[in-house]
């Protein structure tokens, strides 16, 4: 049995996951907690957010995010991809900044208009 805190939403339910019973999850407040509990013990993933350089925008940095969760072990590789990126305004929210992060199929996308 492993005790976890669900991080899917700010409620932060206290989950208990039973490895012996095919990762049966208890203590969840909604169905997403069940998926999270199972995944966290089998293949933990995270959505990552960061920023890239931008020219001609209202600020010097444009916020970006991965458009879906990526394996936890790949976070630093994914971050390294942003080091050389330099965009020019205008950029629209959702625009792809770096496609296919390390073969995962996930992309870095802009998280605001600028």
């Amino acid at each position, binding site marked *: 049995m492993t005790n976890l805190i669900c991080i*899917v*939403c700010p409620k*932060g339910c206290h989950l208990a996951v039973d490895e012996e019973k095919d990762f049966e999850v208890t203590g969840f407040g909604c169905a997403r907690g069940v998926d999270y509990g199972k995944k966290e013990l089998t293949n933990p993933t995270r959505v990552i957010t960061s920023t890239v350089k931008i020219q001609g925008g209202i600020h010097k940095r444009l916020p970006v995010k991965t458009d879906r969760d990526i394996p936890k072990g790949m976070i630093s590789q994914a971050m390294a991809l942003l080091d050389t990126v330099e965009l020019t305004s205008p950029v629209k929210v959702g625009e792809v900044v770096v496609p296919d992060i390390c073969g995962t199929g996930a992309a870095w996308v802009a*998280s*605001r208009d600028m």
Partner: protein
Amino acid sequence: MKYDVIIIGGGPAGLAAACAASEKGAKKIVIIERDKELGGILNQCIHNGFGLHYFKEELTGPEYAGRFVEMLRKTDVEVKLDTMVLEVGQDKVVHCISTREGYQALEGRSIVLSMGCRERTRGAIAIPGDRPAGIFTAGAAQRYVNMEGWMCGKRVVILGSGDIGLIMARRMTLEGAKVLACVELCPYSNGLNRNIVQCLNDYNIPLYLSHTITDIQGKERVEKVVVSKVDENRAPIPGSEIVFDCDTVLLSVGLIPENELTRSAGIAMDRRTNGAIVFENMETSVPGVFGCGNVVHVHDLVDFVTAESMRAGAAAAQYAVGQEAGGPVLEVKTGNCVTYTVPQHIRRENVEKTVEVFFRVDNVYRDMVIQVKDGENLLCQFKREHMAPGEMEKIVIPRVHLDKVQGENITITVEKQ
């Protein structure tokens, strides 16, 4: 120039209030914002975790703000950027100033205060030691790193476990800094549990509970920080010192509602929230002046800010067309474990079906029941498995229960199940 509704502050609270006021039929609405864009604090909160209640999806701060700015574009709401409100005077005249339009006095039929909050720095003043460069509030560091593109340290110690500190621990780590410790005076964390997991645990950043910084050393820049354990009275225990070699200290020691305008307008304040005392529709003690968002009480979830601000905006629109709320007032009193409530006052006649009450508890509790009482009479109750000061509580009280109240107040109290 006479407006129906003047909204001060263009963060998520002001944006939601403007959208709701417009939807309720207010004609001339203006948002006054001192920054160069709308969105408030959300523009620097590039992490995700916003909007799960309201949009049913997980957005970053800028995305959440962007959605509301889009909605606002479809209305006739006027926006004045780069404009600072100096004073809310008598007869609802708002005095503001900008380089483009100079000084202006705008008159409103109703006013919404949504100025948000600022970071507490008192912790910094109380820390003994040198005064070198390298000490920032966590939110200031967040703005430098996420918007202005300045990395502000390589080896970091964070004081306080509020959400902004936790978020910045992860952010600085991802940008290549080494976060050596997050130090918290209380025996529990003040941030959301999910942030402890995904910001500290994910990156093996140690959290020192019941510890505080007792010395900062350094000539030009921070060089060393001394951390000590504290006893039950929060006094440092001699001999428990740990020394960290670091160049940066981030302070995440709480937020204070930004209420200079509120105070000088003579609006009644609540010492517990540091915000205005409000009624069920977010009206303050001055009729026609409403408050919402972090300026009323510090929120951890923007979705709650939005919901509360929509109520304020709608009520401001109604007031502007002459529909004043009135009737007898029930005071909401705090019982066991409860540190404050918002609203503090409820006018039953003005409650349609239900009234939402927000509050915080004073410690970490398990298996509790929240009770709403009229004297000794129990009106309704709500069970909670887990409660903590860092997590705002919300209960929804049906009007039918309020109608039963005999006295002039109700009490919200938290008891063991």
